[in-house]
């Protein structure tokens, strides 16, 4: 099969789809032209992410990666969430085909964007956001040389 059972499960039964009214942070990355847009909403209480939702326009692994990423950070602190890498997303999915690695990068970036939005709105700084540039093009279909 193209994808692992785990990918198919998250694709067919995505967790945390939707949006959060009055979210504390919203991040959107990707580009319609390239066929993938990911938007993540977070609700924060104290330094904890108490709710997270996503909407994704993209392929099966983009949807599965969004789903897994939201699951991984639900209930975590902001700092913990910022430590999430696309490699963790891939591991959690039981692997992705090389040409689909960029879809997991998108999930990592969408989350960072949401936290950045929250940080900016509340004038907060987080170590994990140092050097983060929201306008950077995160979208690279050629990210394939990641070791699993």
């Amino acid at each position, binding site marked *: 099969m193209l994808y692992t059972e785990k990918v*198919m499960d998250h694709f067919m039964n995505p967790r945390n789809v939707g949006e959060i009214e009055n979210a504390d942070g919203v991040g959107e990355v990707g580009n319609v032209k390239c066929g993938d847009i990911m938007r993540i909403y977070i609700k924060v209480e104290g330094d904890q992410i108490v709710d997270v939702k996503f909407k994704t326009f993209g392929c099966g692994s983009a949807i599965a990666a969004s789903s897994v990423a939201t699951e991984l950070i639900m209930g975590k602190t902001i700092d913990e969430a910022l430590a999430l890498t696309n490699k963790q997303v891939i591991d959690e999915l039981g692997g992705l085909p090389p*040409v689909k690695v960029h879809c997991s990068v998108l999930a990592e970036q969408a989350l960072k964007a949401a936290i950045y939005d929250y940080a900016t709105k509340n004038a907060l700084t987080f170590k994990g956001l140092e050097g983060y540039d929201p306008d950077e093009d995160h979208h690279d279909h050629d990210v394939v040389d990641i070791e699993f």
Partner: protein
Amino acid sequence: MKQIYLDYSATTPVKREVVDTMLPYFTEIYGNASSIHGFGQEAKSVLEQSRKSIAETINATPDTFYFTGGGSEADNWALKGVMRANRKKGNHLITSKIEHHGILHTCTALEKEGFEVTYLDVDAEGMVSLEALEAAITDQTVLISIMFINNEIGTMQPVKAIGEIAHKHGVLFHTDAVQAYGNVKIDVNEMNIDLMSVSGHKIYGPKGIGGLYIKKGIRIQNIIEGGAQERNRRAGTENIPGIVGFAKAAVMADENLEAHREKLIYLRDKLANGIMDVIPYAKYNGHPTERHPGNVNICFEFIEGEALLLSLNAKGIAGSSGSACTSGSLDPSHVLLAIGLPHEIAHGSLRLSIGDFTTEEDVEYTIESLKEIVQKLRLMSPLYDKVLKEGK
């Protein structure tokens, strides 16, 4: 779970009768057609009978039809063979932007060898303009290669008129008829075709066998040299079971052409109309009438084709898409871009291709499933969001 195959344009199952015809040639009449003993002569005789049968379906003489290892080889042979053999005449080739990669990537290779290639635009329905074609011909033009039926959007070109223009200017005309053969009646003489590629596995025959029609008197170089097979033009021990199967499939298709077309067109229209009726924000691609009898190609806005295919697959339905995510490249299908679709819409394309084993229930089930799936995916889509909130 019920399995519904709606990807006949990708490949077809081999018909039972075709397999049965092939079987003896694996284990009993297994000779090499070049051998002079009985085993070889039996193989030789069925080889020539098969060639004759196929030639007849396109109104050609047997000595103009050459077997190849498939449609791609035929495409490569036609273009490289003719261009390289006619360097003295000129170095210019005309094709279209919506050809199969078997043609387009061959053109790129020819450009590297120093040939010049004009890639004609097509209109929103995938049609080549005859005026633009004629205007592109120069005194260097050796060959025009325009596909008969496009494999993605199903658009059928005015082949006869293209051949007429080619001949008026003393230019050769090749057509990639891999999708057309077995689905529309082809007469190479009447249609002014000089070279034509066909393939077995698109017409309920075996994979790994195809053919190139080459009108008599055409200068063409070989691309596979070696033994004297195929009258010295294509080396390699003849794939007799494949050839016999291809011929059987070709004859069956030819004899049943009208009924096949009627059935396909009926189901195709039912499927296409059914989908367009129940799913909003959808665009039917290709030409409304001049199209493959079994081809349905629709773009669904706000969602992505691969996700659509996976969801369909989970319901047992097999289709295909021109989305970038299925191709592993950044861009969606060159065909969808050539008919002017914006990237974001081309991403949501779905091709469902109908064939001889498709039933009315398959069509109904597919429409229903698709409706659910598109709805579900759209509810996940940040793009649809905006439409719901802001209208469109």
